[in-house]
């Protein structure tokens, strides 16, 4: 995906923080020396091309409920079925296939810890596979953003 320097600048500056004020896009436009309308149009375009998934809040899961990273080692011939079952389970919001014996990695969420355990127990019983439960013990960096190396992408 090739982006022009202005789009790159928008992402560089605002992938971590946007101003939360009455006219956020006007605030951005002043920082980047363009019009508010251009900022809005560029963000719309980036969003419609799925270059940015959204312009919006990143919620702290632990403050808005409970969540946990879990993994299972699905037998090779059953991976698709097991993955579909995981995706259907209430509360699952991420599911990645990874190259490892533990080949399905997913995040389970729930309103509180008690319901989280219930959901995990239910899913584990359905899957009939031992589940690795890996709650976060400590977060050292939970930014989810990193410096984008535009040169390497072109």
């Amino acid at each position, binding site marked *: 995906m090739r982006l022009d320097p202005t789009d790159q600048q928008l992402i560089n500056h605002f992938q971590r923080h946007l101003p939360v004020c009455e006219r956020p896009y006007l605030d951005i436009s002043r920082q980047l020396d363009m019009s508010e309308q251009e900022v809005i149009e560029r963000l719309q375009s980036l969003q419609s091309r799925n270059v940015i998934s959204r312009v919006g809040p990143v919620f702290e899961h632990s403050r808005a409920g409970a969540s946990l990273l879990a993994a299972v080692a699905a037998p090779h011939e059953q991976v698709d079925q097991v993955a579909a079952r995981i995706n259907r389970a209430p509360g699952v919001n*991420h599911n990645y*296939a990874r190259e490892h014996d533990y080949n399905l990695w997913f995040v389970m969420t729930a309103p509180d810890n008690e319901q989280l355990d219930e959901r995990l127990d239910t899913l584990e019983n359905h899957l009939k596979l031992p589940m690795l439960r890996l709650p976060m013990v400590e977060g050292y960096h939970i930014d989810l953003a990193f410096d984008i190396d535009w040169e390497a*992408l072109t």
Partner: protein
Amino acid sequence: MSTSTSLSETGALTRFVMTDTDRKLILATQAGLPLVANPWAELGKQLQMDADDVLARFQAMQQAGVIRRVAAVPDHYRLGYRYNGMTVWDVHDDHIAELGAAVGELPFVSHCYRRPRHLPYWSFNLFAMVHGTTREEVESKATQIRAVLGDACRQHTILYSSAILKKTGLRLRK
């Protein structure tokens, strides 16, 4: 209704109580803010609230840490970072706090957590996510992490993602 505790600027512990309005606001914004000059007025129309109140609640949730940040969230895969490597490390417990923080500070690490071991099945207690346009790039970043960890690291591996089967942001239970 959920509550959370956070440190206010004065250092006093304050308790944030999430109201029904906050929950509606989360539901209305979790897929993104309206891209119009005044997004709060637009949200106010949807939620039948005053624009100023919408902004004030949003700021209150941010202050309380319920909203970690507001950002233009890039889709790294779409940008060209085809290789997502979950690097996992077996780090000596005595040093993990200090070393975890150091790894988290590397500019290419998008998130870094300590998680429990489950011996004998799982011996890795430090997770650091790295992204690359090639596998070699991910490996070279892992080498840099290895250098930070030094002798405190007994073993490590990289779990590359082969498919994203589901990915949504926080979805508040409805």
